[in-house]
C-alpha cells in the first residue's frame, strides 16, 4: 500500500504498534495513513524516521527501546528518538537515553506534552523540503536596527541608549571616538555604562598569548 502519494504529504504510521498512542488524535495539521511495513513508528519524510518513546512506558519496559533501536536498519538518513517526558523523575532515564541515542546514531528530541509531541511529528513533515534559510545568517536590516543590534551587544546598553548615542554623536565612528566625559553627559549613562561602552571599542579582538 505504500504509494508514491504516501511519501508526498502524509505521515506514515506504523499502526499495529501505535494504534493506542493518544498522540495520533492530536496530529491534525498533516494527514496520516497506516503503513505497517515501515521499521520506525512514524515516517515523517522520505529519509526521516521517528521512533517514539514515552518515559512512563520506558520505566516499565526498559528493554523495549533497546530492542527497537537495535532492530532499526539503516533505512533512514535521519533517525529521531522522540521522547515524551511524562514522569517527574526523568534524570536517570534521560541520562541513559542521551547516551543510547548517540551511540546508536539517533537524534534525541524531547517533548513535554502530548500536544508538543504531535507538533514535532507535524513539524518534521511540514518542514521536510524547507531550505534552512530560517536558521542561516541573514542579510542585515536597515541602519537603525543594525546599529541597535550591534551596540546592544554591550552589557547594559539598551535601545534607548542607542538612540541617545545616535543623537549625540551621529555615527558609529562618532560614538566610538567619544570621550568618557562626553558620554557621561548623556542622560541615562552612568559610570559603569560609559566604561563598558568604551572598553568594547578599545579592547583588542584577539589577545595573542605567544609571539612566534
Amino acid at each position, binding site marked *: 500500500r505504500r504509494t508514491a502519494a504516501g511519501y508526498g504529504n502524509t505521515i506514515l504510521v506504523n499502526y499495529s504498534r501505535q494504534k493506542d498512542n493518544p498522540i495520533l488524535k492530536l496530529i491534525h495539521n498533516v494527514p496520516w495513513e497506516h503503513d505497517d511495513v515501515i521499521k520506525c513508528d512514524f515516517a515523517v519524510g522520505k529519509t526521516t524516521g521517528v521512533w517514539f518513546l514515552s518515559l512512563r512506558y520506558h520505566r516499565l519496559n526498559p528493554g523495549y527501546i533497546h530492542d527497537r533501536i537495535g532492530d532499526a536498519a539503516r533505512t533512514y538518513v*535521519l533517525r529521531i528518538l522522540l521522547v515524551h517526558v511524562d514522569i517527574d523523575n526523568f534524570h536517570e532515564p534521560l541520562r541513559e537515553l*542521551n547516551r543510547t541515542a548517540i551511540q546508536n546514531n539517533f537524534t534525541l528530541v524531547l517533548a513535554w506534552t502530548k500536544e508538543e509531541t504531535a507538533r514535532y511529528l507535524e513539524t518534521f513533515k511540514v518542514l521536510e523540503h524547507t531550505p534552512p534559510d530560517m536558521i*542561516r545568517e541573514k542579510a542585515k536590516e536597515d541602519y*537603525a536596527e543594525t546599529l541597535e543590534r550591534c551596540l546592544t551587544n554591550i*552589557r547594559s546598553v539598551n535601545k534607548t541608549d542607542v538612540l541617545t548615542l545616535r543623537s549625540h554623536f551621529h555615527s558609529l565612528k562618532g560614538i566610538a571616538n567619544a570621550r568618557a566625559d562626553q558620554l557621561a553627559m548623556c542622560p541615562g549613562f552612568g559610570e559603569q555604562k560609559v566604561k563598558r561602552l568604551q572598553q*568594547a571599542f*578599545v579592547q583588542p579582538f584577539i589577545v595573542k*598569548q605567544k609571539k612566534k
Partner: protein
Amino acid sequence: MLEFHKQILADLVEEDALLIMSPGLGLFKIFTSFLDLYTKGTHFVLVLNANQAQEGVIVEKQAAMGVPPEEQLQIIHNETTSESRSAMYRNGGVFSVTSRILAVDMLLDRVPTAMISGVVLYNAHRIRSNSLEELILRIYRKENEQGFIKAFSDVPEQFTTGFAPLENTLKTLQLRKVHLWPRFQVLVSNNLSEASADVVELRQPMTEKMDTIQKALVECMEITLAEVRRQNSMVDVQDFTIENSFFRSFDMIIRRQLDPIWHRISPATKQLVGDLSILRRLLSSLTTYDPVSFFYQLQMVITSNTAKDGAPTRQYQSQWLFLDAADKAITTARKRVYLKQNDPEYDQNDGPTVSDGKIRLRLVPEELPKWNLLHDILNEIEQDMPEEGAPVLILVDGARTCSQLRQYIDGINKPTNDGEPIPILTRLIQWFFSLQKSIYQIQQEDSASTNTSTTGSTSSSFNKSQTQRGSAPLNKRRRVRGGSATSAVTSSRPRSIVETFKTDVQEAVDLLNDPGPQEGKNENDDDIMMGEDDILPEFNLVSPGSIISVQTYDNDVDEELLEDLQPRFIIMYDPNPAFIRRVEVYRAMHPELDVRVYFMIYENSVEEQNYLSLIRKEKEAFERLIREKSIMAIPMPQRATPQQDAFARAVSSRVAGGQLRNKGPPLVIVDMREFRSSLPPILYAEGLKIIPCTLQVGDYILSPTICVERKSIPDLISSLNSGRLYTQCENMCLHYDIPILLIEFDENKSFSLQSLSDMKSTVQLSDLSSKLVLVTLTFPKVKIIWSSSPHETAAIFDDLKKAEEEPEVDKAVLVGAESTDDVNSSYNMTPQDILRSLPGVTSKNYKLLMNDVKNLQELFKLSVDDLKKIIGAEPAKKLYEFIHHKTGLQEQS
C-alpha cells in the same frame, strides 16, 4: 586606625574567615593593611576579584609609602603573556589576578599551587557557587591545605537572598568562619560616638511639578504592574503602595519570579517587565537630573519605545505610554523646560520667548531646588568660615551631576538679566534643542528607510522640508515648516502621546532654526557639553583662598579623598549612607578637626525612600546574618581521597567487563570561552580532568570523534536567530564524526522548551521547536543532548566518555584553525560580537578582520581601500558605509 579596625585585622590574621562589614566603615583600609603584611618577605599571595580602580589605589598607596616596585601589588591582566605569568608566579609576591586567567593557569599547572601562602578574595559578595573562584579554591585546597583563605565584603544585603545564602557562600569559599561587623556593633559604635557630631540635615521639598511627575510615573508603574499580574498569575507582589514602589525594585522581584520560565513567557510580558525598570529609572532621574535633561531622557525613552510606522514590533509597544498619567508626566516635564502658547500658564510667566512666526514658546526652565539650597549653604559657610581657605568638599553621585554643579557654582555670581535663566540652564536648553534637531532627523531617516513605499506622501514632503532646511544657514531666522504641519500642531483634537511628542520635537526643531534670544551663541552648539573644563575657576563668593571641590562618590577611593583633602565643610549633595560612616570614621580618627556636614535630601521623594530603605535593608541584612551565623551547620571541608575514587573508576564494570584501566581521570578539552559558564567548575568538581584551550570548532571535546557545542536556552534562541548555530553545526560536521548540540537548561529553571498555551494551532516556522527541527533535518549527523542542568551535563559527559578514547589537546586546537596564531590566542567576546553584527562582516571573513585589525577603534579608522584589501570590495563598501553613516545631522550646504 581605630580600635575596631585593629580588632578586625587581628581576628582576620588569626583565622581564615569571611569578613562582612557595614559599608563605609573602612573595609578597603583593612584590606590594604592586610596586604601590606605580605609585601615583605617571600610570600606568594593571590588577590582575586579586585577591580581596576581598587588595584590602582593600592599600588598608588604603596608607592606613596615607599614600597619598592618589586614588592608592590603586581597586576596580571589578559595582556600579560603566559610565559611572563609563569615567571611572575615563580618569583612570588602579591598578585591581583583575573579569575579566568588564574583558573586557566592553575589547570595548566602554570601556578606552583603548593607554594601559595594564601588567597584573598575582595568583593566576596560577588562569588557564586560553581564560579571560577570556586574552581580556583577547589584546585588550591586540593594541592595546598596550609595556605590561608580570607574573603572581604561590605555588601551584607547580597548574603541574604536565596536559601541559606551565607552558609552556601561559606561552602563555596571553603571557609567555616564569618566575622560580622555592622555599624551597631558595640565596639564600632563606641569608637565612633566619641567624635562630636555636627550634621545639618536639610530636607528640601520638591517643586510642585516634580511632585506631579513623580505621582504620574508611579501611577504608570502601578498599572503596568497590574497588567503583569493579570497576564501571569504566578507573579506575587504584595503591598504595592506609592511609598514602597520607590524603594522596592518591583521589576527585579518580578524578574526573579518569572526567571524559571523566562524563555517561555510572552513578549508582551517581557515588554511590561522592561517597562517597569524604565519607569523606575525615570523616577530616580527625576531628582538627579536637571529638568532639561530629564525631559530629554523621557523623550528618548518614548521615541525608542515607539514602533516605527508599519514595523512588525508595533504590537509590543509599551502600554504605559497610552495612559493619561504618562501624558501628564510628559506634559509636566515639558513645562519644566518651556511653555506653549496654549498652556494656561503661558501668560503668567515672563520668561524669554522664541517664535517662528506662528508658534511662540516661552522658555521657563526650572532650577533644581537643591541648586538654590546649595547656594544658601555656600553663603552660610562663607559667614561661618573660621579662617581663610578652609577646604569645602561637595559630594555628588555621578560624573554628570559633578560637572553640572561645577558649572552652576561657577555661574552663581555672574549677573543675569531679570527673568533670564541662569547660564547653566541656558546652555542646557541650547544643548537640548540641538539634540532635538538630531532626533527629528533620525526619526525621519528611519521612517523613510523602513517604508519608503507605504508612506510616499509623507516622505516626499519630508524631503522637501529637508532640502529647504539644508539650504538655510543654521542660525538664520526663518520659518521652516509649511502651513499644514502647523495646523496639525495647533489643532486641539485628542492626540496620542506619541503624536504629542512628535509635535514637540517639530516645534523644537523649528525653534532651533530660529534661535531667538540665544542667537549668536548657536554656532558652537556642538561644543556646549564638551567644552567645560574640569578645573574649577577661581571662586569668588566664598573667600578667595578657599578650596571648593566637587567630587563623585567612589566607594573605596573616598577614604583617601577625605584624608587627602582634610575638608572642614562637607556637603553631601546626594544622600549616601556609606559616606556618612566614612565621615564618622574620619572624624573619629581626627578628633582635633572640627568638621561640619550638610546633608541634603528631597522630601517625600524617591531619593528619600531609597536612602531610608538602603539603611533599613542593611540593618535587616545584618540581623539575618547574625541569626544564620548562630544556626548554620558547616561540615568540615571534605578532604579528597583520590585513591578511593580512582579505584572505583578503574574497575568500572561497564568498561570491558571490569578490566583495570589506569589512565587517570577522564579528560575533557574545554574552550577558553566556556569559562564564563558554570559547567567547567562543575566538571572539575565531578572528577573530570579539564584542559582549557582555545578551540576553533566546538566548546567541549570529549574524544577524538566527539565534539560538543553547548547552548543554554537563551544562547540557543539567539544563535538560531543570528545563524551562528548553523555555521557552528556546519563546522562541527566537517571536522568530527559525532558532532553534538548540547541543550542545557538551568538548574532552577523549568525543564521544558515551550509552554502549551503559546502553541499555535498550526506549525509556525518561527517557533523554537520548528527551528530545532530544521537543524536536525539540515544536519542529520548532529546529535542532541538534552540536559536539565550543568550537573546533569557532567554526568552525561562522564557516561559518554566511558566507551571512548581520550581526546588529544594538540589535535583539538588545530581543528579548524587557519594559522598557528589562532591556536595561541584568546578572544574578547563583546568586541567580537559587535564586529560580527556589522554589515559586510560574515562568519567567513570576520577572522580576517580580527587578525589584521587590533580593535574596533582601529577598524573604524581604516579607509575603504584598507578594508578592501582584507575582505574584498563589496563587503568593504558595506562596512565602511555603515561605520561612517551620518545620522541625525542636517546636510551642510
